């Protein structure tokens, strides 16, 4: 699963990242022919990214390529159950990516558009956010 090699120095237990606004970059399909674009804000964990990737790869089986265009580099902490308040911040529990509306999450190249769309539809079911499938336009970089 995707995660930083070692927790970034000084950012081991960060505050929750802000969820306002829309994506400033990564809103166009850059590598493949199709992409999955988030339509809302969400924290997407590395497990959800991996589940979506597997769902896509299992459907297309062979002959395609999948790009993951987000990286879960933000740690989210959690205090253990039945613990009294205080005694510091909880321990890092998940690695997430802070996704904002408009962000392309995955890209795919595959010859058959119907199969590619079905693979992406299956991947969207693994994600905690409303998404749509977008197609690369001619001349889009």
């Amino acid at each position, binding site marked *: 699963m995707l*995660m930083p090699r070692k927790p970034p120095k000084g950012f081991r237990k960060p505050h929750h990242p802000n969820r306002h606004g829309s994506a400033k970059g990564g809103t166009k399909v850059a590598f493949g022919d199709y992409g999955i674009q988030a339509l809302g804000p969400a924290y997407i964990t590395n497990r959800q990214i991996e589940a979506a990737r597997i769902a896509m*790869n299992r459907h297309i089986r062979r002959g395609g*390529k999948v790009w993951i265009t987000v990286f879960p580099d933000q740690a989210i902490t959690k205090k253990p159950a039945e613990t009294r308040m205080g005694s510091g911040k909880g321990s890092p529990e998940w*690695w997430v990516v802070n996704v904002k509306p408009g962000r392309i999450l995955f890209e795919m190249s595959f010859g058959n558009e119907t199969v590619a769309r079905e693979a992406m539809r299956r991947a969207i079911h693994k994600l905690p956010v409303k998404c749509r499938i977008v197609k*690369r336009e001619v*001349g889009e*970089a």
Partner: protein
Amino acid sequence: MSEVKISAELRMEFGKGGARRTRRAGKVPAVLYGHGEKPRHIALPARELAAAIRHGGMTQVFNIEISDGSTALALPKAIQRDPIKDTFEHVDLLIVRRGERIMVEVRVQLVGEAAGGTLVTHERATLPVLADPTRLPDRLEVSIAGLEAGSQVTAADVALPSGIALATDPGVSIAIVHAAPTAAQMAGESPVDEIDSEVIDV
């Protein structure tokens, strides 16, 4: 490509409030500059602009009739879009003149199907060309029909219309044809191997 005639109004109010009021009125805020002229802030009709850009892309030449009586020939230089609604937020227009040669990025379209069992990666979506602004093509086509794995399409392979010259190295790669990954390759493609969860709890 033919020019598109479009009427524009001079904008008198600026900033996000003024820009939002312009958008609510069905117009797109734009700025017109180039050739040493002072920038002029204008508003363009959103529907006409969107239709022209959809058809001609970034190489569509506009013949702009401004409300103060002046006209200008311009080419879109930068377009800001809403990532969700895909509407135009703002357009930068560059003044051009007939007969001059300008450098423009033109879209490249791959045509045809590569050989079976291959995967085509589109490396470069646009190519810079030198041309008269009134004779810019909306796209350049390059054929990938029947190409085998390991072959490559470069800028030199693109058939350019007359009067248009390539403004980059002809060896620049546009598309590469790879052998399609097998099922085994795709199954074991996990980006990073599973790491013990203790790594997180340092």
